[in-house]
């Protein structure tokens, strides 16, 4: 992952987790975690 997380975002169970809250966010068992970044696209 790039330093500082530039270009990366995280959603847990469909809700965006702001970067500032990454450290403090606990992930429950079975939670749907999505980590996304930029890809080429129109």
């Amino acid at each position, binding site marked *: 992952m790039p330093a500082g997380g530039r270009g990366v975002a995280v959603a847990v169970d469909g809700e965006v987790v702001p970067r500032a809250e990454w450290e403090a966010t606990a992930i429950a068992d079975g939670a749907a975690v999505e*980590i996304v970044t930029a890809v080429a696209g129109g």
Partner: protein
Amino acid sequence: MSAQAHIAHAQAEAAARGPFVIAGRELRSRLVLGTGGFSSLELLSAAIEACGAELVTVALRRIDPSARGSLVDVLDAAGVELLPNTAGCFTARDAVTTARLAREAFGTDWVKLEVIGDERTLLPDAVELVLAAEQLVADGFVVLPYTTDDPVLARRLEDVGCAAVMPLGSPIGSGMGIANPYNLALIREQTDLPVILDAGVGTASDAALAMEHGCDGVLCASAISRAQDPVAMARAIRGAVDAGRLALEAGRIPRRRYAEASSPMHGLAELSGGG
């Protein structure tokens, strides 16, 4: 006013709109580049330079640890602004979440809103699109919706507070150009928002035509990235956008049913003898 005079009037108004401004931000280039479809990041980088775009779109997907090179690094190095899209979303809910992820990832509240209603044609889902636009505007986004060429839908998108409208010329990647120039002209006539032709451009003349119809800008992806020589096509479409805009500002002659001679009849020599 005759229909033709009406169109001429609308085009004159479009020409008088001045610089390309979206949500208070002036853009140097009227060509927006979609980054999809390039065979390498090097080619994308060369095409960005050749087309002069200042705003380029990106999509959001699951992070791929095996991906080679960083798209964001390439785009940052090119000095362009990112316009994240919500491509691949079929519901307002998914599109809104994707826009929020993009805002978090790239620190921009601009979004090219796409909500697709049909997998084969990739045509927008009008109902979900308006719903998503409304929610994103309320959430502080600068919303640029990819829409059909329906003037009524364009008006609805304006009503909910979108910053521009991006009607298609024809389906994404189809290269069929502007299928319904009449509808595009109607959209241009009715709104003061920037109108950006999005989708359908196949070659340079399509982009020129969009500009001649009074569009403020043109978005191209496949037309450039999937051309035989993408960098040369980037240059061609850049020239076409400039030419179309210049032609709009210059004011074209009206279409006529019959010829109108440009040489004077007065003083014509009598050459058939006798008299």
